[in-house]
């Protein structure tokens, strides 16, 4: 403990400045929320955390970028007239990596504060529980979206280098980006909610893997079987049940380069979009309720 000058005693030593009050600027809620967002985004990639925690996100990112690099190399060197894989479909093809990234990193943003109870320290500060939950979700959404968009942008750069038609490629890219944003919102909501409920990191990761990878596998199988049995409506209906089938269904309907077992058309695209939005909203409400409850304990 520092030396303090005693009343009537000798004055404090020279390095002791005593307690100094802070009378500088105190930022508003928006700035605090932005700081929390940036910190969360950095933490999702292990930045500002231990060296060990950077391994997983960057390993997965490297694995998802590698095929894109190969495709770019092939297209540029051989002068193909089109990309062998559409932008939106590339994300679909690498869905295992995207799901693993979200499952592994969601607990960083959603379990830690709750498990170690530091959430109470946050909620004793200006940001309210709903804002805190939303900002956390936004951090993960942007982290997941960046994970998908880096290889996508790489493909686009390759297409430009190979001299493919700029307007075609740009339209296709923008469609993919919109779909990816929606997908990122869904995945961040689902993995975030699971991580905020199951506070042990292991359970959270397993839960998210079940929800994103296993469930999607089951749904794809059911879709394939029902399409094979000519039960087209059943095949499309089942597609409402997982974020990945929602993504590919919407991409198919929007002509963004993903083939589904049965074309998603008619009123189905609207249903898909509606379910996606409802799912995001439900996850957000669940997150807010969860943070509020833990914070008041």
């Amino acid at each position, binding site marked *: 403990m520092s030396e303090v000058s005693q009343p009537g005693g000798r004055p404090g030593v020279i390095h002791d400045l005593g307690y100094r009050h802070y009378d500088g600027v105190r930022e508003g809620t928006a700035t605090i929320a932005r700081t929390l967002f940036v910190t969360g985004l950095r933490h999702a990639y292990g930045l500002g955390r231990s060296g060990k925690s950077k391994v997983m996100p960057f390993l997965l990112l490297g694995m998802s970028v590698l095929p894109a690099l190969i495709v770019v190399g092939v297209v540029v060197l051989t002068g193909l007239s089109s990309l062998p894989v559409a932008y939106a479909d590339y994300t679909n093809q690498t869905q295992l990596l995207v799901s693993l990234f979200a499952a592994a990193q969601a607990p960083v943003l959603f379990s830690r504060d709750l498990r170690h109870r530091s959430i109470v320290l946050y909620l004793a500060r200006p940001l309210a529980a709903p804002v805190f939950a939303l900002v956390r979700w936004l951090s993960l959404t942007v982290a997941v979206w960046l994970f998908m968009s880096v290889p996508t942008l790489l493909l686009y750069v390759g297409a430009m280098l190979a001299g493919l038609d700029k307007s075609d490629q740009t339209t296709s890219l923008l469609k993919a980006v919109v779909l990816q944003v929606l997908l990122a919102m869904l995945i961040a909501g689902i993995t975030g909610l699971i991580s905020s409920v199951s506070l042990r990191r292991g359970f959270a990761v397993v839960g998210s893997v079940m929800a994103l990878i296993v469930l999607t596998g089951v749904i794809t199988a059911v879709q394939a079987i029902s399409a094979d049995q000519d039960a087209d409506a059943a095949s499309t209906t089942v597609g409402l049940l997982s974020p990945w089938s929602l993504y590919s269904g919407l991409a198919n309907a929007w002509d963004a380069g993903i083939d589904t077992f049965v074309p998603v058309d008619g009123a189905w695209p609207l249903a898909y979009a509606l379910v996606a939005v409802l799912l995001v909203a439900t996850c957000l409400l669940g997150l807010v309720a969860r943070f509020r409850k833990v914070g*008041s304990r």
Partner: protein
Amino acid sequence: MAGVTGEQHGPGPVITTAGLTKHYGAVHALTDLTVQVGSGVTGLVGANGAGKSTLIKILLGLLEPTGGQASVLGHDIEHAGQEIRRVVGYMPEHDCLPPDVSASDFTVHMARMSGLGASAARERAADVLRHVGLDEERYRPMGGYSTGMKQRAKLAQALAHDPQLVFLDEPTNGLDPAARNDMLRLVQRIGSEFGIAVLVTSHLLGELEQVSDHVIVLDGGHLLRSSATGDFLQQTGSLLVEVVGTETERDRLGEALARLGLTCRPRGAMVAIDPPPPELAAEGVAHDLIRDVAAELGLGLMRLQPDRRHLEDVFLDGGARV
């Protein structure tokens, strides 16, 4: 960006509650609590479950009261929770530190979450960590900290943004006697030297007796008593006398004083003298008498002091509720 500069709270009560009530179903955590807290250090005493933590959480806006009103630093808790949380610090009772972060990084982050800019937060964090007494260990992950170090880190984050009021919930919990004394000294310094109003809870009355200017006693969610610490420790009019020697000397003195009309009883190595009868009650008369008797008997006076009440007596009195 809504920038707000720090303003110091003027005189007047720091916390005011009126009929504050919190019921969890059939459990009555707080019942009709009306109390005022001023600047300096205020102790909030009560057994476990007396409603201390509930009161703090309501004042922070983390819990909604079932009934009643309260204001903190002039802000109403119902409408201005955010303004309150901007200028108040909170050190919870339970563990709340992530184990894989250093106290230094954590305190900086928490200061930023209170609205300080990056460089101001770093400067403040370094300052408060020094004040709470975390030296080189501030750069190590907090998972490896002792209980004493964890309590200091928790206190540092509560002070990081230079609040006008801090809620310290059981800051001495789990500390050994030496660390407990350090923490209590620190609490006292926060209230006096730092000029930050403190509401500190404890279930140990003796602790708060040492550091508080004012004590509020809660019992089962009810206000038992609220007054200045000095009033609790009022002099009873009794005296305590100790002389050099063993019990033999003590008894010789006691018997001699009893013959002169004072009611004496042994208490440990001392003689406790009840409030003197009217003819000896004048200022200093009893003291002179004791001095003279000790001199006559050839006994060495070691101690002659007023017998003061302790906070415990408030409870022993049977606790007539206010």
